[in-house]
């Protein structure tokens, strides 16, 4: 049941993952240029010749847009998906923006009596320590998480690590890895069914690109 005359709306994360995902779409043959995305402060970018429309949103919000169906597809980091736990289809590993989510602390960290963990990812942290059978207090921060162990707000942090430089510069070390992170293509539940023709084509193109199979346009 093909509805290719319809528009496909894709929620894209602003920031770190943005350029890489944009490049991927471009390589897959979709005419999206950086200028048209970055030149303005637009939140919606239309690509009428492909019946595509991009929403530029906060990375953490991508799964929300997709779950509620205002976007058919989205690009979201696995960290965001783990934290948000939304009812969406996780259809493709785009293998971009690779990093990991880890527990870190001061280089001389030792177990403390009342452990506290600072993080932007309270649900991931809570779940991880619970599964390890440890009760920790999770302190939610919105940024500069590395500061917390230095000034004694928490004894450890849970955060994204890519090169480890930020940790190093702040005298922190990676203690445990929680999970590997890459960006994923996610789909709304209904769109996955009702726009399947459209979506299969896009997935095929991206899959070919990411996994080195198939014909790249």
């Amino acid at each position, binding site marked *: *049941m093909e*509805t290719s005359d319809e528009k496909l709306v894709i929620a894209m994360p602003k920031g770190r993952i943005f350029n890489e995902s944009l490049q991927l779409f471009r390589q897959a043959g979709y005419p999206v240029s950086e200028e048209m995305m970055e030149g303005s402060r637009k939140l919606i970018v239309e690509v009428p010749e492909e019946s595509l429309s991009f929403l530029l949103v906060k990375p953490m919000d991508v799964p929300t847009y997709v779950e*509620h*169906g205002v976007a*058919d597809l989205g690009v979201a980091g696995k960290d965001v998906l783990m934290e948000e736990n939304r*009812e*969406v*289809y*996780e*259809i*493709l*590993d785009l293998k971009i923006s690779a990093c990991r989510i880890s527990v870190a602390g001061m280089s001389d960290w030792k177990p403390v009596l009342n452990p506290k963990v600072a993080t932007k990812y309270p649900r991931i942290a809570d779940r991880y320590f619970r599964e390890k059978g440890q009760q920790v207090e999770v302190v939610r921060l919105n940024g500069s998480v590395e500061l917390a162990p230095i000034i004694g707000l928490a004894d450890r942090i849970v955060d994204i690590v890519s090169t480890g430089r930020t940790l190093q510069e702040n005298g922190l070390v990676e203690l445990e890895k929680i999970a590997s992170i890459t960006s*994923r293509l996610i789909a*709304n*539940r*209904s*769109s996955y*069914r*009702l*726009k*399947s023709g459209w979506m299969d084509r896009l997935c095929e193109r991206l899959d070919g690109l990411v996994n080195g199979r198939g014909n790249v346009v």
Partner: protein
Amino acid sequence: MAKPRIFEKPMGVRDFLPEFVSKKKWVEKQVEDCFRSWGYREVITPTLEYFDTVGKASAIEEEKLFKLLDGQGRTLVLRPDQTTPISRVVSTLMKEEPFPIRLCYHSNVFRAQEREAGRNAEFFQSGVELVGDHSPEADAEVVALAVEAMKACGVQNIQVAVGHIRLLNALLEHVVQEPEMIAKLKQSLGRRNLVEFRESVQSLNGSDKKQMVLSLLTMKGGQERLDQLAKMDGGKQVAEEVTHLKAMWHALEDWGVASRVVLDLSLVGSLDYYTGVYFEGYGSEGYYLLSGGRYDRLLEQFDRPASARGFALKTDRLVMASTQGPDHPERVALVYSRNMRYEAFQIANRMRRQGKAVSLFVKESDRSFDSLAGYDRVEEVIGDGNL
């Protein structure tokens, strides 16, 4: 916690204003006419049930149940779905009635409040249960009825995706063997996480195996997929389930709904609950409108084992997805002076019998009729029984 303001309601519950209510009633009427004409009879069960009976047997996970305590401290639940209470009724009050039993319902169901606005704690469902018939035709009947009900509400672009959990199981058991791996693969599908599914497949031994399990993700379509499955050497269990699914498909073809149906073996519902066919219905501008399937293990929990299947329409979404609606009667404001009270009532009743919605307004010196702006027509009674 701050004391609630007067406009506040508990999270996840809603008020419904006349416009929505009239459309909702219309939708329920269309659906109801459909159900009744297919021989389904409506039942009403209580809002409150025991956690130990209906709560535990329900397909809804415990943390999503809306729980409270009764006077004796026993745990109650607000009914989380309608299938479980109906199974209780079929197994107890209707114990003597022979199978198959066809029942339907329109009701509100409850879920514990979720973390954000937009997720409802109370919502409406209409659905059917067909209990005590193990034929593939019975499975086909509820799928066909689901399509019919959506059509009756003017839903466009209807599509029903059909999976089969027993067939999926049999295929996985034939190819994969390790029970932990099978469970993991099914869980990934249940969470709609195709990436995780593919990752698990990579850890299997043998490229044939990998290929076979991966092909489940692309097993979408109609007759051609069934032929493909039938040719496969998957053992006795697989062959049995394929035969059942094929018979169901042929019934759907005979009944003219196969064009609305897409088989998709990667579609699974609640894993511990469904025992065969599982399906979801979609339509109009991206609405997820219904889910249902075969649940052969539920009735035995109420001591009357039987095969059963049914579906529940998500009424709230059906109201939004429906392209049609009720015809609204003309709303008439009939204004009269007190000495014409008798006549005004006669006139109003005559107009009511003609299908108009008539409200009476007595003229008083201190009354302004600004409030009549919302009426389609304003009439004044001036003479002896005429307008």
